[in-house]
C-alpha cells in the first residue's frame, strides 16, 4: 500500500489502488448483470412483453349502404380513412415547444394542446379525431417525439342528412346504432380480425417480429336499400315543410309498395346529421319515429275495424244502421268528435266519411252479435293482433322497432268494454306508422300481409349479390272480396272529401286514391287523462290505378295553428302532397278501365 504517511507518495501504488477499485466495480457489474439477465430474466421478460405485446382487433371495412335514384345506385353511406392524432405525454421532451409547433397544424389553440400534453399518468391522450391524411402526414413530419396518429375508418354521408334516421350511425367503437346500421350490424360489420404483435411504443406493430398472430378480417356486406332516393328526398321535403308549418313535435310519413312491402320512402322531421351525431343532445332524435314510436293512431283505425266486421260477414259495405249519437258503456260515454253529429240513420260509408266513433263502436257490437261483449272483443283482438299483426314487430331492418300495445280482450278489469270501444275508433291501443301502413296494405291489396322491408340487395365482399324477395307473412288477412269493398269505401271517402271542400283531394278519375283521416287524442303521461290542448293528426291511404300501388301513412304529432280536426287539417294535406307527387313523378299506373 501507499505509504502516504511519509513524504513520498508512490503513484504506481496509487494507480493500482484506484485501478483495483475500477475492477471491483466492474466485477460488481458482472454480478448485477448475472442477477438481471439470468436470475431475474423471467420477471423482466414478462414485464417487457406486457409492455410491448399488444393485442388488437383489426376492424374489417364496414359495408356501404346505397339506394336507387332513377335506376342508378347512389351511395348513402361510405367509408373514409381518417386519422386520430394522439400523444404519449411520457416521452414528450418539451411540452410547450411541442404544443406551439403542432397546435397550428391541428388548427387548435396551443394552450389547449399544452394542457392535453401535460396530462399525467397516461401514455395516450387524443389530440384530435378525424384528421385528414395530409394533416396527419404534415404533423408526423415535424417529428416531435410522443406525437403519433392512428388510422380510423369513419362513415361519410354523400347525401348529407337524407334518410338519416333510416340509416342510423356508427359509434366510435365501430358499432352500428339505430336504423339500418344497428339492424344489419352483423352483415355490415363483417368479421373482426385479430392481431397480436410486438409493437413500438406507439402501438405500431413491428414488422420484424415473427410472433405476430393474425386472423384476417372479413369485410362487411354492401347493402342496397329499397328506398327510392328521389322519392325519399321529396317526402322529406314535404314532411319538413309540414313540420315547420304546423310547428309539430314531429311529422312522419312512409311510402311503401302496397304489393310487396318494400319501403320506398320513410321520413321524419326533425331529424339529425349522421356525420355529426355526437353533437346531438337529445338522443330520442336518433329514433326513426315512424318505426320506433307507436302512438294511439286515432280514427284511421276505423278502416281496420270496419274491414274486420265486413270480413267476418257481420256487416256489408252497404249496411245501414241507426246511430244513437252516443253510447254509454261501463259508465263512460262514447261520443263523436263533432258533438251532435251522427245521430240517425247511417251507412258504413258515412261511418267512415264522417268518422263516427259511435259507428265504430256499433261495428264492434256487430262482431259480438249486436252487443259489446267478449265475443266481439275476441274477434277484434283476433283481427288486430293475428290478422293485422299489431303489437308485434314487423321485422323491418331498423334498430329499436316499437311493438305498440293492444290490450288483451279478457275481462280483467271493469273497463274492458269501454277500452275496446275506444280501440274500435283508434284510442286505448298503440301502433307505429309502419305497423298501420303494413296492415292497410294487406287490407287493400287483396289480403296479403307483406313484411315491410328496407333491404333490397346484399352484396358480399366476394361480389355475390343476394336480392331480397317480398316476404309474405300473412295471407287472407281479409278476403279479396272484403279488400275490394274496402277500396270502394275508402275511394268514396276521398272523393267525398274532394267534393266537400278539400279540393286537393281530387286526383283525377284515372287514379284510385283512398284513405282516411285520424284525429288522435293524446294521453297525458302524468295524469293518464286525454289532453285537451293537443291532438295528433294522422292519415293513411293508398294511391294506384286498378289496384293500389303505394300505401301512404302520415303521423303529424302535436301540430299547432290549424282550425278544425287535426286529421283533416294536418294529416290529410301531407297525404295529398305525397300522393300528387307519386302520381306526377313516379309513374303510378292509371286505371285501364
Amino acid at each position: 500500500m501507499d505509504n502516504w504517511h511519509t513524504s513520498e507518495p508512490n503513484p504506481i501504488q496509487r494507480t493500482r489502488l484506484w485501478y483495483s477499485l475500477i475492477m471491483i466495480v466492474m466485477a460488481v457489474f458482472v454480478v448485477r448483470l448475472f442477477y438481471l439477465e439470468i436470475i431475474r430474466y423471467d420477471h423482466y421478460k414478462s414485464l417487457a412483453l406486457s409492455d410491448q405485446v399488444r393485442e388488437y382487433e383489426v376492424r374489417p371495412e364496414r359495408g356501404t349502404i346505397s339506394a336507387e335514384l332513377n335506376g342508378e345506385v347512389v351511395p348513402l353511406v361510405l367509408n373514409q380513412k381518417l386519422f386520430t392524432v394522439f400523444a404519449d405525454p411520457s416521452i414528450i421532451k418539451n411540452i410547450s415547444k411541442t404544443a406551439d409547433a403542432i397546435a397550428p397544424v391541428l388548427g387548435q389553440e396551443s394552450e389547449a394542446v399544452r394542457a392535453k400534453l401535460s396530462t399525467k399518468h397516461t401514455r395516450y391522450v387524443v389530440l384530435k379525431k378525424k384528421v385528414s391524411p395530409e394533416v396527419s402526414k404534415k404533423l408526423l413530419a415535424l417529428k416531435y417525439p410522443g406525437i403519433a396518429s392512428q388510422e380510423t375508418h369513419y362513415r361519410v354521408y354523400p347525401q348529407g342528412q337524407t334518410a338519416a334516421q333510416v340509416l342510423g350511425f356508427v359509434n366510435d367503437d365501430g358499432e352500428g346504432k339505430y336504423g339500418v346500421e344497428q339492424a344489419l350490424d352483423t352483415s355490415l360489420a363483417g368479421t373482426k380480425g385479430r392481431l397480436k404483435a410486438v409493437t413500438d411504443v406507439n402501438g405500431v406493430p413491428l414488422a420484424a417480429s415473427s410472433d405476430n398472430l393474425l386472423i384476417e378480417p372479413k369485410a362487411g356486406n354492401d347493402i342496397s336499400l329499397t328506398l327510392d332516393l328521389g322519392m325519399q328526398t321529396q317526402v322529406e321535403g314535404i314532411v319538413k315543410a309540414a313540420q315547420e308549418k304546423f310547428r309539430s313535435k314531429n311529422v312522419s310519413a312512409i311510402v311503401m309498395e302496397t304489393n310487396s312491402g318494400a319501403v320506398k320512402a320513410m321520413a321524419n322531421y326533425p331529424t339529425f346529421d349522421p356525420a355529426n351525431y355526437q353533437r346531438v343532445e337529445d338522443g330520442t332524435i336518433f329514433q326513426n319515429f315512424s318505426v320506433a314510436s307507436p302512438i294511439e293512431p286515432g280514427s284511421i283505425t276505423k278502416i281496420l275495424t270496419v274491414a274486420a266486421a265486413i270480413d267476418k260477414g257481420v256487416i256489408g259495405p252497404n249496411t245501414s244502421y241507426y246511430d244513437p249519437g252516443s253510447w254509454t258503456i261501463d259508465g263512460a260515454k262514447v261520443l263523436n268528435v263533432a258533438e251532435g253529429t251522427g245521430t240517425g240513420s247511417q251507412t258504413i260509408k258515412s261511418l267512415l266519411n264522417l268518422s263516427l266513433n259511435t259507428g265504430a263502436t256499433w261495428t264492434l257490437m256487430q262482431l259480438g252479435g249486436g252487443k259489446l261483449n267478449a265475443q266481439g272483443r275476441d274477434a277484434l283482438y283476433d283481427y288486430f293482433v293475428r290478422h293485422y299483426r299489431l303489437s308485434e314487430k314487423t321485422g323491418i331492418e331498423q334498430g329499436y322497432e316499437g311493438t305498440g300495445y293492444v290490450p288483451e280482450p279478457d275481462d280483467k278489469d271493469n273497463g274492458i268494454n269501454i277500452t275496446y270501444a275506444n280501440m274500435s275508433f283508434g284510442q286505448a291501443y298503440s301502433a307505429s306508422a309502419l305497423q298501420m301502413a303494413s296492415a292497410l296494405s294487406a287490407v287493400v291489396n287483396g289480403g296479403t300481409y307483406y313484411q315491410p322491408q328496407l333491404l333490397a340487395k346484399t352484396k358480399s365482399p366476394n361480389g355475390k349479390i343476394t336480392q331480397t324477395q317480398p316476404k309474405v307473412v300473412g295471407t287472407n288477412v281479409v278476403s279479396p272480396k272484403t279488400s275490394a269493398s274496402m277500396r270502394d269505401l275508402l275511394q268514396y271517402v276521398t272523393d267525398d272529401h274532394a267534393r266537400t271542400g278539400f279540393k286537393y283531394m281530387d286526383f283525377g278519375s284515372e287514379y284510385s286514391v283512398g284513405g282516411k283521416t285520424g284525429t288522435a287524442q293524446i294521453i297525458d303521461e302524468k295524469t293518464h287523462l286525454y289532453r285537451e290542448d293537443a291532438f295528433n293528426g294522422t292519415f293513411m291511404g293508398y294511391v294506384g290505378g286498378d289496384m293500389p300501388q303505394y300505401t301512404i301513412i302520415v303521423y303529424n304529432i302535436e301540430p299547432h295553428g290549424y282550425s278544425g280536426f287535426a286529421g283533416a287539417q294536418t294529416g290529410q294535406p301531407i297525404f295529398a302532397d305525397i300522393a300528387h307527387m307519386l302520381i306526377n313523378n313516379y309513374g303510378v299506373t292509371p286505371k285501364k278501365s
Partner: protein
Amino acid sequence: MLEQPRYKRGVEPSEPSRKHRPDYWLVVITACLLAIGLIVVYSISPALTELRGGNYVAHQIIAIVLSIVAFLVTARIPLRQWQKWQWWLLGLAALGTLVALVTPPIPAYPQHRWIRLGSGFSLQSVEVLKFALLISLSGFLASRVREGTIANSKMTLKPLAIALGGIGIVVAFVQSDLGSAGVILAMAIIMGFVAGLPVRRILGIGILVVVLTVLAVSTTPYRRARLTAYMHPENNCATASGHQACQALIAVGSGGMIGLGLGKSVQAYGYLPEAQNDSIFAIYAEKFGFIGSVVLLGLFGALFARLRLIIERAPDTFSRLVVTGVLAWLSTQAIINIGAMIGLLPLKGITLPLISYGGTSVLFVGAALGLVFQVSHYTSFHSRFIPRGGGQRNRYEHTTDRRRIRRPHQAGLGGRA
C-alpha cells in the same frame, strides 16, 4: 514523422525515453469498441429514424472517421506541444461553452449543452473542456510535483479547487449536466491522487462533495423524486423521472443469457429513451444478453488494463498524468453510464465512451486515446515515479540493467502484455 520530444524552458527535466513500438493492443481494443457501437447504432437506426428521423449510421461513421483523424493528430503532435497549447485549448473550451450557452436549444434537448452546426451536426462543449482539462491539469500537477509543492494547499489545492469549482458550477448548474461535472471532478481527483495530493485532502474534498450532494438532493423535490425513482425503478415506470431507469432494466433483464439478437431489440422502438445514446448499453444487453454484456465489460476492462500499464510505465509525470486522466475519464464515464442502466446508480445522462452515438464524445475520446498511444511509444518497463524536484534521474535509463530487460524492437509493454 515522430520525433523525440524537444524539451524547452526546462519543462521536462528528466531524460527522454527512447521511442519504441507503440501499444497496438490499445488500437485493436478501441477499434473493437467503436465497431460494436457502430453495429448497435446501425441495428437500431430503423427504429430511431421511424421515431425521430435522421440518418444515424452516416453521422456515426462520420464521427468515427473524424475520431480516427483526431487520434492520428494527437498521436503525432508531441505531448509537450499540447501542453504549450493548453491555454488555447482552455480558451477554446471556454468559447465553446459560451457558444453552447447562447445556442437556442431544440425541443428534444432543452439544455444548453450543444453547439449546433446545422444539418443535424452538433458539438457538445463539455467534451472539448474535458480534453483541455486533461492537458492543463496534467501540466499543472506535473509542475507542482516537479517543484515539490504538490502537498502544499496554497500552491496546489486552492487554485485547483477554485478552477474546478467554477467549471463545476457552469457545467453542473448552467448546463444542468451533473454527470459531466462528476466526470470532470473524478478526473481531477484521480489525477491529483496519482500525482501525490495528500490523501487527507482528497478525503476532505470527497466528504465535502458527498455532503453537498446530499444537501442538493434532500432540499430539492424533483431531485428527491429522481432518487426515489432510482431506488425503486419498477414502481416508477409511468413517471417521467422513473421511466428511463425502469425501461433500461427491462431492456437489460429481457436480454437473458444470449440476448434477443442483433436486429431484434424492441425497447429501441420508443420504449427506452435515448436508446442510441445514454441508454445504448441497455439496448446492447437486450440484443446480446449476459454473454455479450460480459464481453463488452471485458473489452472495457482490457482497455483499462492497457491504460493502467501505460500509466505505470509512463516515461515522466506529465505523460503519466495525461494517461491517468484518460483512464479516469473513460472509466468514470463507463461506470456511471452502465451503473445507471443496470439500476446501481442514478441516471446522469452521459455517454458510454466509444459505444454511444454522439459525434463529440467519439471524436474527443479518439483524441484522448491518441495521446495515450503517443505515450505508449515511450513507456519504459522500469520507469518509475520521479519523486520531486525533477532532478533525480531514472536510475535504469542507459544502464545495462535496462538493456538486459529490453527486447529488440519492443520495450515496456511487450514484456508483460
